[in-house]
C-alpha cells in the first residue's frame, strides 16, 4: 500500500469522524493536507525542491569562491544534513506499515499519526514535512503521479459499494483519461528541472540532485509493481478506514470526488480532457447541492465551487458559472457559511473581471461584505480583485493599498504567479500615482526559490519604470512595442 493510499485513507477516516462529530475545523485541516497531496502528484514539490537545491548550490558556490578554506566544512555540513534527512524518511516509512497492521485499536494509530504529523509540521520548515512523507514526490514526480492514480482508483473501488452516488465507474474513466496527461506533465517538469540544474558547472550540485533521484527510484521500484495490480486483499478497507465503510458520510464522498476533479484539473490535457473535467465538476456540484448542508460541508463545497470555476475557465465558458455561483452565494450567506461566502465572492468577482465588466464588479464589491475569515489566501485574492477594480476606476491610492495588502497576505514562497501578477499591477499603479517604485520590488528576495522567475517576469516592467524615471519617451514606446504586457 503506497503512501498516497494511506494518505487518502487517513483523510477519509478523518472526514468521517469530523462529519459524525460535526467538527468543521477538522475538515479544514484534512483539506489542507489534500493540498499537499495535490502538490505531490503535480510535480510542484519536485520543482520546489530542485530549485531550492539549485539556490543552495548557488549560494554555496558563491561561499566557496569567496572563502575556499571553508569549502570542506560546508561539504561536511551538507553531507550531514543529507544523512539526517534520509534517516528521517526511512523511519517514517517504517512507521507507516506499522500503523496499518493494528486493526483493533483503530483510534490510536490515527491519533499517533496526527501527533506525528503535528510534531513533524511543528518543528521543521514547511517545505520538509511533505518531502519526508512523500519521498517519491520529491525525487520522481512521474512515479508519484502513478502512485496517486493507483491510490485514487483503489479508494474509489473500496468506497463505491457503500456510496452508490459516487458513480465510481465514470470517475475511474476520468482518472484513466487524465493519467497519461499527468505523466507527460510531470516528465516535462523533470526535464526542465534537469536542464536548469545542468547549468551549474559544479559537480557537487549535479550529484546532489541526481543522488536523491537514484535513491528514490531504487527504493520505491519494488512497491509500484505490486500496487499497480490493485490487489484488494492486501488493502482491507476495514483496516485502512477503521470505521465501518458500509455507510460513508456525504462529506467523505464529496472529498473523494473532489480529489478526482483535482486530478483531472492538474493533468492539463487537451480539449477532451478539459471537457471531461467540466463534466466531473458539474457532477460534483450536483452532489454537493443534493447532500445535507452541515457546517462540515462548508470547506468542501467552497473548494468544489473553486474547482468548477477553474474547469469552466479552462474551457472558456466562465460566464456560464455565474447563476450557479450567485445562488450558492445566497445560500452560503443565509446559512452563515463564512468560508463558502468568501470563496464564492472571490469566484464571482473573478467572473466579472475576466469579462472586463468592471462596473458590475464594482457594484458587487460595494454591496457584498467580505466575511471575517482566517484564510489568508481568500483575502489575498479579494484584495487583488478589489485593487484591480479601483485601478480601472482611477482610484490609485486605494488600489495601491489593496494591492499591497494582497502581497502581504499571499504566501511567501508559493503562489509565484499570483505574486508576480500583483507585483506587475502594483508597479503600474505606482507609476500612475507619480512615484517611481523601488528596485527591490522588481527583484524579489535575493535567494528565494522563485527569484529567477520573478526577475524574468518583472524585467519589462523594470524597463518601463526606468524609462519613466528618465522621462525618456522614445525608450518607453520601444519597450511597449517589444514586450507583451498582459495588463
Amino acid at each position, binding site marked *: 500500500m503506497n503512501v498516497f493510499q494511506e494518505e487518502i485513507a487517513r483523510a477519509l477516516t478523518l472526514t468521517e469522524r469530523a462529519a459524525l462529530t460535526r467538527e468543521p475545523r477538522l475538515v479544514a485541516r484534512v483539506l489542507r493536507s489534500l493540498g499537499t497531496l495535490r502538490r505531490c502528484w503535480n510535480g510542484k514539490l519536485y520543482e520546489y525542491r530542485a530549485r531550492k537545491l539549485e539556490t543552495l548550490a548557488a549560494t554555496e558556490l558563491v561561499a566557496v569562491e569567496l572563502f575556499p578554506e571553508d569549502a570542506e566544512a560546508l561539504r561536511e555540513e551538507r553531507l550531514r544534513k543529507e544523512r539526517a534527512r534520509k534517516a528521517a524518511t526511512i523511519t517514517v516509512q517504517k512507521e507507516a506499515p506499522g500503523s496499518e497492521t493494528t486493526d483493533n485499536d483503530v483510534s490510536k494509530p490515527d491519533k499517533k499519526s496526527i501527533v506525528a504529523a503535528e510534531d513533524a509540521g511543528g518543528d521543521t520548515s514547511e517545505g520538509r514535512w511533505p518531502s519526508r512523507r512523500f519521498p517519491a514526490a520529491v525525487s520522481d514526480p512521474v512515479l508519484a503521479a502513478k502512485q496517486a492514480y493507483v491510490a485514487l482508483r483503489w479508494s474509489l473501488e473500496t468506497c463505491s459499494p457503500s456510496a452508490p452516488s459516487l458513480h465510481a465507474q465514470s470517475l475511474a474513466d476520468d482518472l484513466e483519461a487524465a493519467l497519461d496527461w499527468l505523466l507527460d506533465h510531470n516528465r516535462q517538469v523533470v526535464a526542465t528541472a534537469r536542464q536548469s540544474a545542468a547549468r551549474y558547472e559544479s559537480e557537487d550540485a549535479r550529484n546532489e540532485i541526481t543522488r536523491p533521484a537514484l535513491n528514490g527510484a531504487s527504493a520505491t521500484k519494488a512497491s509500484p509493481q505490486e500496487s499497480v495490480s490493485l490487489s484488494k486483499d492486501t488493502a482491507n478497507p476495514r483496516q485502512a478506514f477503521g470505521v465501518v465503510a458500509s455507510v460513508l458520510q456525504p462529506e467523505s464522498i464529496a472529498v473523494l470526488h473532489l480529489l478526482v476533479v483535482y486530478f483531472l484539473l492538474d493533468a492539463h490535457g487537451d480539449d477532451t480532457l478539459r471537457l471531461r473535467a467540466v463534466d466531473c465538476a458539474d457532477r460534483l456540484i450536483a452532489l454537493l447541492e443534493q447532500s445535507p448542508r452541515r457546517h462540515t460541508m462548508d470547506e468542501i463545497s467552497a473548494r468544489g465551487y473553486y474547482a468548477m470555476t477553474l474547469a469552466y475557465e479552462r474551457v472558456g465558458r466562465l460566464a456560464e458559472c455565474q447563476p450557479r455561483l450567485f445562488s450558492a452565494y445566497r445560500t452560503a450567506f443565509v446559512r452563515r457559511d463564512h468560508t463558502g461566502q468568501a470563496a464564492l465572492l472571490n469566484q464571482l468577482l473573478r467572473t466579472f473581471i475576466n469579462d*472586463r*465588466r*468592471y*462596473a458590475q464588479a*464594482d457594484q458587487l464589491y460595494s454591496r457584498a461584505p467580505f466575511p471575517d475569515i482566517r484564510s489568508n489566501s481568500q483575502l489575498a485574492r479579494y484584495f487583488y480583485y478589489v485593487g484591480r477594480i479601483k485601478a*480601472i*476606476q*482611477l*482610484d490609485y491610492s486605494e488600489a495601491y493599498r489593496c494591492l499591497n495588502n494582497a502581497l502581504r497576505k499571499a504566501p511567501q514562497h508559493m503562489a509565484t504567479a499570483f505574486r508576480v501578477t500583483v507585483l506587475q499591477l502594483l508597479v503600474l499603479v505606482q507609476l500612475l500615482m507619480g512615484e517611481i517604485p523601488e528596485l527591490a520590488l522588481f527583484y524579489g528576495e535575493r535567494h528565494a526559490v522563485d527569484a529567477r522567475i520573478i526577475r524574468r517576469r518583472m524585467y519589462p516592467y523594470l524597463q518601463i519604470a526606468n524609462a519613466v524615471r528618465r522621462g525618456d519617451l522614445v525608450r518607453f514606446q520601444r519597450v511597449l512595442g517589444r514586450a507583451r504586457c498582459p495588463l
Partner: protein
Amino acid sequence: MTGETMIDGSPTVSASTALQELAALVKKSPLSSCERSRADALVAELKKELARGELANHVAQRGFHELCVRLAVLDRDWAAMERHIQQLLPLYAEDARSGVQSPFRDLLIGLNLMRLLAQNRLAEYHMELELLPATEPQRNPYVSFPFQVEQALVEGSYEKILHIEAGSEWLPFIELLQETTRREMVTCWAEAYTQATLVELATMAALPVDDVGALLARVLDPAQYQIEGEMVRFRSSDRIQEAPSPRLVATASIARSMEYIRGLERIV
C-alpha cells in the same frame, strides 16, 4: 392610439409605422415645437407597446431605444439618455455575439462615452471603455473623439478642450464639457496659485472677465479665495508655508551645528 385601433391584426404594424415616423422626425434634427410634441407622443405610445411586450422584435426594440437616445441628446435630457443607453447596451452585446450590427451603434457608443466625460464621470468612462475592443478608438471615429478629449482632460491641457472644433453631433455635449473643464481649471488654480489677476484667469478660462467671479463662486468655498479688486488671492489650508526668509533658517542650523561642535570638543 388611432393607428392601433384602426388596424386590427398585428399591432406590430402600427409600432413599425410609429418607429418609421419617429425616425423621420429625428432625422431632421432641429425640431419645431409641434414636431417635438408629435415625437413625444410617438415615444409614449411606443413605450406602452414595449411595456405590453408587443415590441418583441429585437431590431424594433433596439431601434426604439436608439431613437429615444438621439431625441434625448437633442433635448439635452441626460437622465433619459442614460436610461435608454442602459437598455441599449445589452442589446448591443447580443448583437456582438451574433455578429449583426446596428448602423447607429458606433455613433451611440461614442455619444455615451462623451456624456460620461462631460459629466466628469471618469471612472465610469474608463469602465465603459474597457468593455470595448482595443481597436475601437482607431476604427470608430465617434469613439476617437471622446478618447482624445479624455486624454487632454487628464493631461491638463484645458485650452485645447475649450477651443475645440467638433462636429454637429457633439454640440449638445460641448457646453457641458466646457463647464466641466472650467471646474477642473478652477480646482487647479486653487492649488497652484497664491494670487492671480482676473484678466489672466479670464483668458485661461475663455470667459469674459465679469464671469470669472461667478465661476469661482460656483466651484470653490468662499473661504478658499478672496477677490480684491483686480487680483484674486487663493488660500489653501494644507499648503506648505514657505519660510519667511532664508537667512532665518540658516541661522538656526548654524546655531545647532555650533552646539554640536562645542559638545564634541568637551567630550574629546
